[in-house]
């Protein structure tokens, strides 16, 4: 009777004999989140297709694009912005209708936008994830810090995160926090001289200087060399010391995942029983392809993921898809210290002042993170001095003097989720593939606006503490490219898109691997949390498929 066994197996799985799938799992998007999920699933023996709208480009080519650009300050510019895979580089990619011009740096190529980030890999605080119950504002996550902790650890190991095991990352000056089950995979990089000087003079004023855990390895790790301070994290790490999703796209392929480039997903197809049965993609040549799988993970960026769901009329019974959009809208400040601090040695950032990351003030105004930026300051310094009319030997002297004393703070605020801040497929505009482009409505909320004076007061204290000369505090608000909330996570299917496992409430075989699920933004760069959630998704699917 052995010949009957296959029939029984099929019968038990509740599928018909005729049904075959192109893969166990299809992952839409080869960024850090999608690639990590794809890798974990392929490693677990599942057949995986990893789809990418853009192309694969070797690092050396991007490095050369970066050097040979006449627009070095535009981090998107070294990457292609081809008409069939537009990015935020193009005006026509998205239209803003709100008071703020939301235009996050984002990329379409294998590895995604982590090609240009500064690799900050913070964990959320327990209180970040219980914002509503702790401070009475915003939303709670449906899962707790403890629930996520093991996956934070795995994400840190995947990315090669370096960090201090001894600091209170909440910025409150206490012991090591948040709690960790294991030490950081790698020790922190050396403290830059600039950081030492700012800390030495400003911490006596009560400011807590915190190392930023990051994914620039301090020792060779997973085929990557140690960071040597080439100071080009954005727009591209020239040596691959800094993590980018491309590493795990490669790893996923090495363990059997199939990578498809030039494949822009434009439709998720619904089937019986609330299942998603297929994804449709279009190539640059206009070919349409339908792929089927048992499970789907959409990991297509915080703006593109809700667009794909809305275009497909999927997962939106709550009407929350695309809403609650949050960025860590920010401001910046430059000043000249009274002593040589020599910014620009080491990576482009390595920590900052965290006193307002947490605390009772969050009942009234947003949490604040002051990060110290550390790019080689010459481009900014020289442009400013030439504008001022300096020429000749005096220009050189002033460049040296000001570059040695230049300090830049980059500050972010915690946004709250508002259904009116939203991303949608554009009602009329279509891209070269005939797919709707994006429209965004984004207003900075009062919670953030109320925090700004506190941040600016800190700025003035910093400048005074360094006996410095203020250059500028930015006007208006700045993009920080941290997209959250757009497919918001929650316990209640009526007001959220995914559950605590990132599974859509409406379709039990559809998961969303994007920072767009994050329901409470805190002030920390959300990528590590996104990767942790993605690995958690992979574990959940691996048990079911």
């Amino acid at each position, binding site marked *: 009777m052995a010949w009957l066994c296959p029939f029984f197996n099929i019968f038990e799985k509740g599928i018909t004999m005729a049904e075959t799938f192109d893969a166990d799992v299809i992952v839409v998007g080869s960024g850090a989140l999608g690639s990590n999920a794809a890798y974990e699933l392929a490693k677990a023996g599942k057949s995986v297709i990893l789809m990418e709208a853009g192309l694969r*480009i070797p690092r*050396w*080519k991007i*490095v050369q*694009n970066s050097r*040979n650009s006449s627009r070095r300050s535009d981090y998107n510019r070294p990457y*292609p*912005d081809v008409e069939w895979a537009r990015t935020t580089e193009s005006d026509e990619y998205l239209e803003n209708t709100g008071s703020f011009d939301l235009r996050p740096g984002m990329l379409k190529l294998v590895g995604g936008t982590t090609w240009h980030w500064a690799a900050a890999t913070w964990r959320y605080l327990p209180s970040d994830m219980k914002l509503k119950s702790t401070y009475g504002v915003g939303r709670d996550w449906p899962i707790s810090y403890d629930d996520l902790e093991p996956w934070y650890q795995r994400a840190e190991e995947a990315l090669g995160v370096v960090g201090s095991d001894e600091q209170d990352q909440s910025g409150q000056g206490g012991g090591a926090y948040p709690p960790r089950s294991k030490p950081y995979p790698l020790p922190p990089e050396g403290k830059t001289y600039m950081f030492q000087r700012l800390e030495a003079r400003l911490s006596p004023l009560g400011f807590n200087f915190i190392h930023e855990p990051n994914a620039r390895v301090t*020792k060779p790790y997973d085929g990557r060399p140690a960071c040597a301070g*080439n100071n080009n994290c954005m727009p591209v790490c020239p040596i691959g010391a800094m993590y980018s999703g491309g590493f795990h796209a490669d790893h996923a392929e090495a363990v059997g995942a199939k990578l498809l480039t030039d494949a822009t997903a434009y439709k998720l197809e619904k089937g019986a029983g609330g299942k998603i049965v297929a994804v449709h993609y279009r190539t640059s040549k206009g070919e349409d392809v339908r792929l089927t799988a048992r499970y789907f993970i959409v990991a297509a960026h915080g703006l593109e993921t809700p667009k794909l769901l809305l275009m497909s009329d999927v997962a939106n019974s709550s009407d929350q898809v695309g809403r609650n959009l949050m960025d860590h809208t920010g401001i910046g400040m430059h000043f000249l210290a009274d002593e040589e601090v020599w910014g620009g040695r080491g990576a482009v950032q390595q920590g900052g002042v965290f006193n307002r990351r947490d605390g009772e003030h969050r009942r009234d105004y947003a949490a604040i993170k002051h990060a110290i930026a550390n790019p080689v300051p010459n481009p900014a310094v020289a442009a400013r001095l030439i504008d001022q009319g300096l020429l000749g030997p005096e220009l050189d002297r002033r460049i040296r003097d000001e570059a040695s004393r230049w300090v830049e703070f980059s500050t972010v605020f915690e946004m709250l989720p508002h259904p009116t801040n939203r991303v949608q497929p554009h009602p009329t505009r279509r891209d070269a593939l005939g797919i709707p482009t994006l429209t965004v409505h984004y207003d900075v909320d009062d919670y953030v606006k109320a925090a700004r004076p506190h941040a600016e007061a800190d700025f003035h204290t910093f400048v005074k503490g360094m006996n410095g000369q203020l250059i500028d505090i930015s006007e208006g608000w700045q993009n920080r490219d941290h997209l959250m909330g757009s497919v918001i996570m929650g316990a209640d299917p009526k007001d959220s898109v995914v559950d605590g496992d990132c599974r859509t409430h409406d379709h039990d075989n559809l998961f969303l691997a994007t920072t767009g699920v994050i329901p409470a933004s805190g002030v920390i760069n959300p990528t590590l949390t996104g990767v942790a959630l993605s690995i958690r998704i992979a574990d959940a699917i691996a048990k079911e498929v």
Partner: protein
Amino acid sequence: MKFLISVTAACLSLVVASPSFAQDAQPDFTDKALIARGAAVATAGDCAACHRAVEPSGPQYVGGYEIASPLGAIVAPNITPSKSAGIGDWSFADFDRAMRKGKRRDGANLYPAMPYTDYQGVSTADMQALYAYFMHGVKPVDTKAPETHLPFPFGIRMLMTPWNWMFRSDKPFKATETLSTQAQRGQYLVETLGHCGSCHTPRNVLMAEKSGEALGGGDIGGWHAPNITSDPISGIGGWRQDELVAYLRDGRAPGKGVAAGGMAEAVEHSLQHLPDADLEAIAAYLKASDPIRNPDEKRPAFAWTQARPIKLAAYEPGNGTDEASYADSSTTDGAFLYAGACASCHGRDGKGTKDHFYPPLVGSVTTGAVNPANLIMTILGGVDRKSGVGHAFMPAFADQMSDAQVAAVANHVLQRFGRSQTSVTATMVATARAGGPEPLLLKLMPWLMGLAALALAVVAYVSIRKSSGRKSRVG
């Protein structure tokens, strides 16, 4: 006296089959000092390089690691004292026979990936210490390493019997009398435990070290283990003693070059741990060794110290105007590839960094060699070497460049920073990717298999004749 001991050792090794005799001469293998000495001998012999776990973090000497040989992967066995999976049941005689004659305890032949032709000369004292260490200093691990399965006909271990007749000698190690005591010690380390010749001596058609060309340079797995004889042009004659010692200990010698591939492993696992006196001895011996000259070489490989500058515009042509050009990585412009892939660390001028964290490409044996194998392999596979001066690491570019691109960037490096007469073709890169040129042995296999069969038949005939003759005498 030394000679006498050696002769005695040789006699011992000839009669190890007689257990009672061997045991009489044996020390207390549980002696702590002996075990500690054995650990040092194991380090000098670099046993861990091959007999390691698949995972770098795995237990010591557990085996399982696949040694890439041109004839197929050879799996290093478990040599922990586990009775079920390792060599826990082995007597000293078993151990000694394996080490010197390449015979397993069950009598089967080892493959000469195990350098028993070199270990043959290890002193009895060292061998006993080594045995003590493996029996009592190493933690037993009961994980059996998989069997080696070489493709036919190499899977027939019997084939090694005639090979051993041809290439294995029972001659004990004998230092060259004219050498200094220091150099004699170096000679012992180089020729026996260090088994330097297994890479640095060219191999003949049957993959045995060519006896007349000791340390004259050999090809292994796509790499070229260079000539390390005392010749000032082709060998290490132009290296100062302290440079050789630094290279062996640190894996780098400023102005000379850095260790990659198998040499990086030898430094990491073995050489850096040797006492300075032994490194000095090795260097002294190499500097006193018989010189071998490659007539094609007119200048030492490290002596290409002048970078030939190129206009900055070659590195910075400016970006194209159409978006597709940002994704187009098809170029075979060596300067462009160098700028994107190499210059971030090695500099536009090929000088590396002042602190030697990134080595220079000028004045380097890798870029100044007649044979570009190591340059190609370094670009393809990178460098990974831990030593007392840090963890040197270069990422692999095999997945980021085509064969033609690797050739182009290698030629740029050779023309600008190294020996410009050396050149690289895409075909050479493809061969290197495949693990180096196919040995003649494989190419000749159809004929050799015929020969081998013939040889086996002769062997079988002779041994039957011999044994029947003996029988008749006994009978």
